[in-house]
């Protein structure tokens, strides 16, 4: 089964699952960089971040409604080929960054935390090949897979809550205003930047059967709920330790494993995490391949192969970039920029010549 780029392939519920799972992956791979803010701030800014995320969607929604279109890239091509190509390139670049980030972060986690022996490159290549196969199977396949993964994650989250309940210590909660307004603003910016799924939603709109906007908004509420829950747990259970550790959710699962009746939740979390990586990586790679199709009009194999090669190239470059690569302002910011720029370009660029097919 190959992707049919211009077809309505998934329903709103599947869109929600893709977006939520993608966002959950970003949350799981949290790594405190130099711009990290205290956990209390992260917890406090989630509701403003939700508002900001919904606001970021408004230009896209307005443009689509105003021009009676269902695809921003399609609209850009309708206006003129140059805008179309530019928007597709922008979409492609941001999707490649997101996909590459997904693969490298997962490989880094596995090679740094779980394994000592297998090389990062080998893990990365295996993951890349798996994601490429999922993309080859089509958007429907990995979006259908999302249902089971979401259920598994939900059960795991419930088990984490039960496991963590006796260890919750509210003394770890501090006032978010302790450091003034600056951390609040920084936290809002960082949390919003982590949400590249907004851009994915905008690019996925044309592939959704109906009510894409409504399901995207619902997705934002769901991932905010999960973020609040897991941030609260990590903060109150792990305390200041959470701010220093990479992968705090995994640390949370690991920390209570030996005392828990559920046994080793960390192993189950690891398995679900791999599923999240496959789904997120495949979603962005599929979107990237769709952009390549719009740019080149070539076959599925060419589009997927080219995008896969570009993702691999960016993954290869990620090691020299080092810690800078982990900053959400780089990979997430690019996606948010695309989310904001594509609707504006598609909406306000002039109509030139014949409409592009």
């Amino acid at each position: 089964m190959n992707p049919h780029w211009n077809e309505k392939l998934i329903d709103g519920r599947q869109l929600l699952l893709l977006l939520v799972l993608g966002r959950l992956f970003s949350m799981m791979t949290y790594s405190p960089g130099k711009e990290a803010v205290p956990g209390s701030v992260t917890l406090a800014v989630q509701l403003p971040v939700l508002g900001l995320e919904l606001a970021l969607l408004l230009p896209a929604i307005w443009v689509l409604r105003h021009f009676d279109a269902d695809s921003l890239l399609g609209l850009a091509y309708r206006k003129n080929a140059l805008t179309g190509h530019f928007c597709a390139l922008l979409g492609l670049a941001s999707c490649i960054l997101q996909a590459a980030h997904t693969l490298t972060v997962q490989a880094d986690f596995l090679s740094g935390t779980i394994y000592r022996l297998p090389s990062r490159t080998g893990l990365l290549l295996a993951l890349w090949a798996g994601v490429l196969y999922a993309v080859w199977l089509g958007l429907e396949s990995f979006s259908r897979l999302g249902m089971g993964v979401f259920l598994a994650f939900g059960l795991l989250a419930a088990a984490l809550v039960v496991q963590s309940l006796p260890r919750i210590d509210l003394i770890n909660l501090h006032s978010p205003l302790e450091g003034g307004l600056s951390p609040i603003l920084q936290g809002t910016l960082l949390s919003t930047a982590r949400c590249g799924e907004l851009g994915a939603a905008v690019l996925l709109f044309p592939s959704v059967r109906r009510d894409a906007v409504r399901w995207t908004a619902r997705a934002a509420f769901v991932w905010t709920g999960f973020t609040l829950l897991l941030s609260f747990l990590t903060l109150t259970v792990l305390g200041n330790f959470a701010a220093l550790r990479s992968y705090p959710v995994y640390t949370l699962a690991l920390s209570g494993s030996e005392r828990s009746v559920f046994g080793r939740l960390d192993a189950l979390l690891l398995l679900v995490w791999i599923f999240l990586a496959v789904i997120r990586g495949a979603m962005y790679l599929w979107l990237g391949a769709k952009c390549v199709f719009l740019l080149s009009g070539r076959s599925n194999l060419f589009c997927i192969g080219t995008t896969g090669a570009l993702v691999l190239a960016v993954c290869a470059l990620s090691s020299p970039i080092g810690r800078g690569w982990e900053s959400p302002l780089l990979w997430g910011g690019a996606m948010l920029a695309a989310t904001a720029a594509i609707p504006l370009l598609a909406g306000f660029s002039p109509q030139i010549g014949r409409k592009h097919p």
Partner: protein
Amino acid sequence: MKQKERTVPGYRAPQPPEGENIPLSKHLQRNLEYLRAASHNTADLVIREFEVSSVPVALVLCEGMFNLVALGQNVLAPLTELKLKRPDPEELLEQVRRSLVLAVDQGEVATVGEVFRFIMSGFGVLLVDGADCGIRLALQGFSFRSVSEPSGEVNLRGSREGFTEPLRINMSMIRRRIKSSALRFEMVTLGTQSKTDAFLVYLNGVVSPRLLEEIKQNLKKIKLEQVLDTGYLQPFLEKRRPLSFFSGIGITERPDTACAKISEGRVVILLDGTPMALVLPYLFSEHFQSFDDYALRPYYALFILCLKYFSFFMTILLPGSYVAIGTFHPQLLPRELLYNITASMQPTPFSLMTEAILIHLFYEVMREAGLRLPRPVGHAVSIAGGLVIGDVAVKAGLIGTPLVLVVALTAISAFVVPTLYEPVTVLRFLFILAGGWWGLFGIGLGFALVLCNLCALTVAHAPVTAPGSPLRLFSLRDMLYRQSWTKLGRRMMEVDRVPGAPGPQTKGADS
């Protein structure tokens, strides 16, 4: 562009037998000579020549295929006693057509091919000198296995009947259960040489016309000389992409299961000579259902369903996970178990992955041998196998003791969902390799891709993972748990309208 057939030495393309479309001649002797020549004087061709009111006739039969008593009482006696007012072929044919009831199924044949096809199905063909057609008379009397309990789908409750080899008996078993005029048997003949009869069975008005048309088109594409089992048809009915271990086509040998599927808008294909009927489309969740689920109390049916899902995942993942954890993540094991496993691995010369592959290979070899051997010998092989795996291999230091437990658990749990045995067996080996090379990452990635592949499968435009994904909560009443019949019976499932399938269509095969 049509693909050119490649010539391979030692192989030939399937070809229909020659001269089958030749019409029957008015000369009886010429017809008989041609029949003898075309059949190369085969030993089982029976030709009995006699006269009816001085009109030369011949009865053509196939040895062992007809009922001798029915032949004598219903055909030969009335014909030999027949006195024609005007003894000529037309009068004789007219009498046979209008006045004499020689067989319940009686009609005319016009070509040599038809004569062969009918006599080889147990009919007798009456050829009359001076007439360029023959009369076929149903006299089937070949021996066959009687109706018995299906060995592969044993149930605690419900019918004990299973399909058997003759098509007509299977047909009657379905008809007895659905006494509706909407139930339709549509006959097709498959195989250029074997000319095997098959029936498409469906409920008119319930089945999707698109599904039916697609199946018919796919069956027309079959260019095989012999069609000896429903397995021959399966690849023609499945979509070629994506390649998958799983199938969207089900198999059943139970008439009650077939009837339940038919009532949900599915098409059942019965093939002459096999008790295995095909069910199209077949959703993945149906592998975990059995007829018992609908006869037992709902809470117990739910319990059994959970057991089946658990067994399925265990049989695929347990050996691979054991290898992965033992090799890469020993910290996940409780300390005491870890010590035991380490101690059992000390004297063995192989890695955990090699051990697991070896022992599972041993097991599959013994299972296969036990399956094909005569039953008493098969038991002996099983006992010897059990001893080899369970005792001697451990004592010889080839494998560790915990692995024996793992293989025993996986082997038993594989039979909980027997229809998935084939994919489960191969996947088990793949997961052992993935776990041995990459640890839990390999298991996770492999499992994600297997599920992704399963999610990509569609049959008759419906995703095989429906109604679980894409999700419809209402449909879970028959998939994730089993509602009581008081609620279940209010709405019948329509398989062409599961989530993810194309929208509603005009129902009815004739529409």
